[in-house]
């Protein structure tokens, strides 16, 4: 069964559209002919086992890598064809939360959040300081303003990076594995933040993760990737209903060890790997 997009595909509703996108790294195909729409104003969660190119998907959207075939449209801009100026203009409206935060280690938390403001605005210092305080307040880190990233816990660093990603009031937020390595409490905090920020600021959010249950709880829409294609998409309930016809989807959602998905990329049998095959 192939899953087709169910959401209206008119451009006005779509923040991101992938049309027939293929991408390969070396000889290895990561995506083949993917179609995907991310509606405006919603939280879209991209699920999938590790190594299926979820992060690559975000890079395609951010224009860090280019599709080998197909088009990636973000807010109407063809990212693959955009020149640098247009791409940078688009990125100013995009916030990215990197997997480990990617805070600048030689700057304090406050300076990190102020960085994009200094880079892209001519506001005076006092005003920027005030904006930084607001942003930090929004993620509950006002007290950590003068700390260095090395002094923060993993969850705090993630939230500080979130404040930085939101510094320029982006229209689109991309989250790359925001829950990886978080304890249940800070994961809950992050989940609530993602949802609240999205609704309060009218953002469009894309969350890439493999934490099925948690992500489903805040998702308006879910896309499940595996083996370079989309094996399920729709609202969380719709995706849960699609598992019947798609054993890979059912296996992923249930976390079952056996099924069409393999944890590594085991192609040769153990005997072959040991050089025993065909000897006896």
């Amino acid at each position, binding site marked *: 069964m192939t899953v087709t997009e169910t959401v209206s595909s008119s451009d006005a509703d779509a923040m991101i559209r992938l049309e027939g996108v293929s991408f390969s790294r070396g000889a290895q195909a990561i995506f083949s002919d993917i179609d995907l729409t991310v509606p405006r104003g919603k939280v879209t969660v991209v699920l999938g086992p590790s190594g299926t190119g979820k992060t690559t998907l975000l890079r395609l959207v*951010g224009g860090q890598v280019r599709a080998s075939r197909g088009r990636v449209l973000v807010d109407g801009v063809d990212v693959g064809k955009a020149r640098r100026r247009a791409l940078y203009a688009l990125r100013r409206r995009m916030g990215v939360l*990197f997997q480990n935060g990617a805070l600048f280690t030689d700057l304090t938390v406050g300076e990190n959040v102020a960085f994009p403001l200094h880079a892209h605005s001519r506001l005076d210092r006092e005003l920027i300081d005030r904006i930084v305080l607001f942003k930090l307040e929004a993620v509950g880190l006002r007290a950590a303003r003068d700390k260095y990233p090395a002094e923060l816990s993993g969850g705090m660093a993630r939230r500080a990076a979130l404040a930085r990603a939101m510094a320029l009031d982006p229209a689109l937020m991309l989250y790359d594995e925001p829950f990886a390595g978080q304890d249940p409490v800070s994961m809950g905090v992050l989940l609530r933040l993602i949802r609240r920020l999205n609704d309060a600021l009218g953002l469009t959010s894309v969350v890439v993760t493999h934490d099925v249950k948690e992500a489903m709880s805040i998702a308006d829409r879910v896309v499940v990737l595996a083996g370079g294609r989309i094996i399920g998409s729709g609202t969380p309930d719709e995706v849960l209903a699609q598992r019947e016809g798609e054993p890979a989807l059912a296996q992923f959602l249930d976390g079952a060890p056996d099924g069409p998905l393999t944890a590594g990329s085991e192609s040769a049998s153990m005997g072959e790997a040991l050089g025993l095959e065909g000897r006896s």
Partner: protein
Amino acid sequence: MIAVIDLVARLGRMAIGGVRHAGSMGLFAVRLAWALFPTWTRPRDIVQQVYAAGVLSLVIILVAGGFVGLVLGLQGYNILNKFNANESLGVMVALSLVRELGPVVAALLFAGRAGSAITAEIALMKTTEQLAALEMMAVDPMRRVIGPRFWGALISVPLLASLFSMVGIIGGYLIGVVVLGVDPSSFWGQIAEQMDPWEDVGGGALKSLAFGAVIALIAVYEGYEAEPTASGMARATTQTVVLSSLAVLGLDFVMTAFMFGA
């Protein structure tokens, strides 16, 4: 027979790898060149890098320069004394330092002290996605991270080389004049008389400027293209020291042949 073919294959692979490396560095240099002048819109970034690369290398450069000068004074005195020419000690020490040892040794020390640090810093920023974060904030890392570090190294090396030579000459003076009793007026007089400000001082400065450019390019390139892993970073730093040391020595020969050759 197989061993021979294997050897040829390995040599070929090395050659292809070398050409590919050079090509990718060339492409990188072109991208960097576009960012070099826009970097000056933020002079503070460059000043910071001159401090990190240059000022923090002062101790090793000054101490090394002093010792090299002391040794030159001692060795030079022993040789020149055989020919009753020890009043030429000053000019011998000064010429050796200004033409050769200053630019070359300062550059080698700089590559080990600061070049490796530049590579490691950029590679770490890449590994921790800080460079990608800049890209996604619509800030060009070439202008913000790579450019200032390139300028920092380029500006620091000639200054450090001239300080190295100065301290070296003082070292030669201490040994020659103060310890061994060479006449001070002939020590300084011969330097003033026989050294050509354009050919000798200018040539030395040109050399160290070229060395600075080569080290700066290699250091930022290796960092930027480092494999984003712990071992990749280690390899990149080593590569910077090895490549830039060899490049400095090779380039020194070529430039010497052109400038001071027959």
